[in-house]
Every structure is written in structure tokens, then in C-alpha cells.
């Protein structure tokens, strides 16, 4: 059996990669991808905790609780919605300014 910690390390790694992308990429779409990575990292965490948690009913040996999985499922759904909205916003600013470079978006500051 794979130790839980392996999954957690992988999750942390994917999450950190995503965060790095969100922090340093100039391109807004690349940042969006970074955010997707972060969410995937979280999902690995959630599913792993679910799998290694107390989910088996001792008497029937059936899986009785699915909350971690359900949470992960919702996160996937939310990520889809977020990506759609994010792309809509990015395309709208691209039409206005012909750029998706984030460091050029500084009309509002100070």
C-alpha cells in the first residue's frame, strides 16, 4: 500500500507549482493554468485524506462516507466555472487592450 504521505507530498508539489505559475507568469492565461494546478493539488489532498480516513463501516465492510470525494467533485465543477469566467474576463480585456500581459494592467493603482 502506498503511504498517505506520498500522496500529500505530490499534492503539495503540484500546489506549489501552480502557485509559482500564478505568481511569476506574465501571461494571464498561464496564470489561469497555474490556478488550475493549485486546485488539482488540493484535490489530490482531499481524495487521499478521504481514502485514508475512517470511511469503512466495520460491520458491513462497505464504503459509507463519500464526503471527501464529493468535495473534490465540487472543486472540479467550481474550477470549470472559474476557468470559464476567467477566460471571459481575459478575452474582454484582450479586446480592449490587445494584450494579456499582467504587468501592463496597471491603470488602477496607488
Amino acid at each position, binding site marked *: *500500500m*502506498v*503511504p*498517505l*504521505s*506520498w*500522496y*500529500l*507530498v*505530490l*499534492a*503539495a*508539489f*503540484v*500546489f*506549489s*507549482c*501552480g*502557485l*509559482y*505559475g500564478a*505568481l*511569476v*507568469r*506574465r*501571461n494571464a*492565461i*498561464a496564470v*489561469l*493554468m*497555474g490556478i*488550475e*494546478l493549485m486546485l*488539482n493539488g488540493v*484535490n*489530490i489532498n482531499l*481524495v*487521499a*485524506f*478521504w*481514502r*485514508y480516513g475512517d470511511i*469503512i463501516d466495520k460491520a458491513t465492510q462497505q464504503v459509507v462516507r463519500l464526503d471527501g*470525494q464529493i468535495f*473534490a*467533485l465540487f472543486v*472540479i*465543477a467550481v*474550477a*470549470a466555472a472559474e*476557468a470559464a469566467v476567467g*477566460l471571459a474576463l*481575459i*478575452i474582454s480585456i*484582450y479586446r480592449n487592450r*490587445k*494584450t*494579456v*500581459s499582467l*504587468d501592463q494592467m496597471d491603470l488602477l493603482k496607488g
Partner: protein
Amino acid sequence: MDIIQQLFPLPPIPTLQQAVFIPLALFTAVCALLVVLSPNLFHNALALVGTLFGVAGIYALLEAEFLAISQILVYVWSISTLITFAIMLSRGMMFGATSKTNKQAGTAIDGIVVIGFIGWCNFVSARSKLDVSIAVA
């Protein structure tokens, strides 16, 4: 040395699950790195699709088959398509002359190392508690 051995006890022979997990995790991790490191936006998107597949594999390994299918259906088919579509739509921006990353990479890594550290803390305590309980079960 005691501590390290205590925290990272290397099992002598990987079980079958572990043998599947290790390459899968490596693939996912490398793809994730490519997503953020490759300068070509198109490669980024491809690597993202790769990561998502890898994560779906992890779900399958964790016996969450339904979730793995959802991952492939929702992410790989819809989000990736959406992103690729957006890249196509704004093709011009793929070939900008400037650097693909901004100047804060160094600081960001410092910060993220610490976030990784949180993950590590997480792992340590979870290990001490959960691994034991699983071993008992």
C-alpha cells in the same frame, strides 16, 4: 540520521501499488513543472492536459474511479479545450518579445518553499497519526 530514517523509512521492495504510483507521480510532477516553466504557452497547455491525466490516474489509484472519470470528462475535455481555444483566439500574444515571467521569480520561490514546508508539516503530522491507524486496521 535517526530522525531521517524515522521520517523516510524506505520500504525494501515496492508493492504493486507503489510500483504504479511512483512513475505516475513522477509523470504528474514533471508535467506540472512544465506547465509553469515552459516558455511556450502551447506547451504549457499540453503539459496541463498531461498533469490532469496524471491526477486522474492518482484518483483511480485511490479507488475514486468516478472522480477519475469526472476529471477526464470535465477537465481534459472542457477546460483544456477552453484554454486552447483562448490561446488560438489570441494567437498574437504567444510570440511576444519580452520574457515570459516577471521579475519576482526568486522571491516567489522563497515563499513557495515555505508553503511546501507547510505541506511537509502536514505530511509529518498526518503520517504520525494516520499511517499508524491504517497500519492497525
